[in-house]
């Protein structure tokens, strides 16, 4: 079975690359189901049932559309809540392979460790032969945070920039030199999707005008990610288009060549009113008296890093050294507190446990003491503060919404059944068994549930992902939550289930109608 699933995956996954592909793919899928269903239905009585049910629904289109709209709105809310819960659940689920571990100061939040810890922690603190040693070229990275404002006199949300200071190579590590030179040869500027004119003006690139050979090279870049020739400690590399990968690599090379150069997210750049190639000076908010000047070398692709900014860690560390040199006997207060986090990646749980032990017993990390935990447990600890809120979302809000959906459908179907008691009686007279009448009534509810559920989840997917750009739910340090592709199934499924449960009572009433009583009343 696993082999078959893999083969199906290998066929389907390449078809769905962008959200647009996903939407098109889903439409084709549903069209397929529709054709299949009608194909079967034409052959028999099911087609009659289907049309009969549809006509009953369209008879009072206002009630049907109001029921459908209520279902769609509730599906939207459930989809949003489930998206957040699913994301958090995935973030706190332990992986069995390629675990990310976070090393922080043990007893204090925020974590502030001396930068001298960096070399040993990045390697996993091996001390003897046989200890696990992390590959520092691609499997570890350090995090320092530098925040500042371009206008110290009037600090606003817009004029503040918060930099992640790191080795720029860890944004994207090219493990194969041939791929690196291939990327360098493709004529895509670091400023992509913009081009810098001679005048210094930035112009949007409408078309790349690549040769066939260069297009093939781009394909190789894309494949290099899948083959592991291009890796990153950051999430989201696999979401980047090959053009964006090439541009990002060129921007990284620029930051490596000149430490003042930085990569900034689109929205942050817009808020600063700066463009690629322009410079700006920050007055630091956390590193007092260390004010730095930057030049924008590149921009993150549209998405999760829209508000982020990355600078070379050496720029900050050199500035600190310079400060200490200029002020003999008065070291900067954060001199021994500039390393905030170390991330390492290990292949499996056993390796993680080994590294965790190595760090715990190492005498080098006693003041301050450090701890090593998996990223998921780190996130889980952080989310502990939101435990009640998440519990409420999961166990109160969602069930309440599902119950409301059931009740709305139940009321609508009950009214409809009451209005059509005579018709139910006629069907019985003609020989329809109670079970067949049950199917008609349940069918009406389920069709409304499935269709409105699908429309609800589809419009939620489109609205949130394509128009709004994700659910901006300010919890922990997560970016905007994007509606997952599988959410397109949630709507029809919850629509069908709630419709089914909401219509059980009215459909039972419908099939228990006593013909003689109904006709006696009419007479």
């Amino acid at each position, binding site marked *: 079975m696993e082999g078959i699933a893999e083969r199906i995956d290998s066929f389907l996954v390449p078809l769905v690359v962008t959200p647009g592909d996903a939407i098109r793919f889903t439409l084709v899928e549903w069209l397929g189901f529709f054709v299949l269903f009608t194909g079967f239905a034409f052959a028999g009585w099911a087609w009659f049932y289907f049309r009969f049910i549809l006509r*009953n629904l369209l*008879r009072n289109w206002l009630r049907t559309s109001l029921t459908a709209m209520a279902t769609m709105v509730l599906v939207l809310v459930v989809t949003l809540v489930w998206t957040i819960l699913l994301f958090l659940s995935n973030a706190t689920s332990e992986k069995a392979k390629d675990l990310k571990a976070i090393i922080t100061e043990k007893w204090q939040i925020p974590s502030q460790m001396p930068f001298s810890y960096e070399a040993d922690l990045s390697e996993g603190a091996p001390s003897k032969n046989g200890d696990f040693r992390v590959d520092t070229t691609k499997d570890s990275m350090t995090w320092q945070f530098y925040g500042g404002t371009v206008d110290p006199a009037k600090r606003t949300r817009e004029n503040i920039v918060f930099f992640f200071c790191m080795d720029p190579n860890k944004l994207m590590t090219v493990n194969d030199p041939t791929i690196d030179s291939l990327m360098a040869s493709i004529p895509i500027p670091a400023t992509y999707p913009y081009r810098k004119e001679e005048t210094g003006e930035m112009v949007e690139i409408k078309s790349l005008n690549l040769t066939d050979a260069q297009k093939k090279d781009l394909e190789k870049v894309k494949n290099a990610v899948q083959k592991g020739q291009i890796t990153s400690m950051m999430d989201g590399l696999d979401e980047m288009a090959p053009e964006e990968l090439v541009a990002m690599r060129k921007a990284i090379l620029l930051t490596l060549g000149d430490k003042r150069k930085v990569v900034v997210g689109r929205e942050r750049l817009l808020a600063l009113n700066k463009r690629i190639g322009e410079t700006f000076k920050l007055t630091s908010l956390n590193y007092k008296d260390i004010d730095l000047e930057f030049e924008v070398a590149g921009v993150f692709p549209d998405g999760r890093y829209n508000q982020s900014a990355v600078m070379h860690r050496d720029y900050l560390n050199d500035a600190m050294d310079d400060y200490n040199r200029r002020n003999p006997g008065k070291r900067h207060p954060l001199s021994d507190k500039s390393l905030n986090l170390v991330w390492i990646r290990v292949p499996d749980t056993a390796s993680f446990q080994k590294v965790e032990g190595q760090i715990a017993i190492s005498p080098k990390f006693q003041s301050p003491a450090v701890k090593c935990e998996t990223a998921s447990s780190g996130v889980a600890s952080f989310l502990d503060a939101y435990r009640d809120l998440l519990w409420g979302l999961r166990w109160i809000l969602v069930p309440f919404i599902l119950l409301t959906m059931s009740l709305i459908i139940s009321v609508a179907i009950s009214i409809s059944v009451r209005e059509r008691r005579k018709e139910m009686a006629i069907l019985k*007279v*003609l020989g329809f068994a109670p079970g067949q009448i049950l199917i008609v009534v349940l069918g009406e509810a389920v069709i409304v549930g499935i269709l409105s559920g699908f429309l609800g989840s589809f419009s939620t997917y489109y609205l949130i992902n394509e128009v709004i750009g994700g659910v901006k739910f300010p919890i922990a340090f997560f970016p905007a939550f994007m509606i997952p592709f599988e959410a397109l199934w949630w709507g029809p499924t919850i629509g069908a289930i709630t419709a089914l449960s909401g219509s059980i009572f009215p459909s039972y009433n419908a099939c228990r109608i006593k*013909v003689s009583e109904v006709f006696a009343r009419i*007479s």
Partner: protein
Amino acid sequence: MEPIVEVTHLGKNFRRGLEEIHVLSNLSLQVPQGEFLALMGPSGSGKTTLLNLIAGLDSPTQGSIRVGKELISAMGESRLAKWRTRHVGFVFQFYHLLPVLTAYENVELPLLLLPLTYSERKKQVLTALDLVGLSDRLSHRPGQLSGGQQQRVGIARAIVTDPTLIVADEPTGDLDSKSAEEILELLVILKGALNKTILMVTHDPRAANRAERCLHLEKGQLVNETYQNFNVHTQAVSH
């Protein structure tokens, strides 16, 4: 002749609150194959209840009903539903067509419960609608037809399964005299041409006059029966 319907010591009670109402009591009746029988009587005499019981829409409190070789008074609801599909065609006072379906689809409705192919169903529906003279109104919905035409569709729906019995509950009660006459004529033709057994409840003596035999009910009992023209034969039938 072997009777097609045999009702023996039939009784039906209804409960209204604490009160027990005896609608039919100790009623016996035989209807031969191919007879056109009218049931008359004042309101509340039990005619419609008797019709419903014979048609398998309700269960008797006592006694038995046999239609053909089947003892329908002993059948459960689902089995009765299946039996009705094959053996009973209904014609109602208020036509009772489904408003969302066309004339064709209304007539096709009972055939959907039988193991027939699409072409077999189509053939039967067209034949039935042709018999009632509505071949040109196939795609009309009930709201687009006159009362007389709707009742013709109702009759087509009743005969489309080629049932053993046709039961009609005041089929002319909601029609003007001209349309009523046409419907009665149609029932007489059906009885003559297809040799159908027809049981009709009516208040209208002119309608009853088209039947071969007329049974009179009062307070749940058969009080007399009259043959065609009302004066051929009169006798007390109950007790």
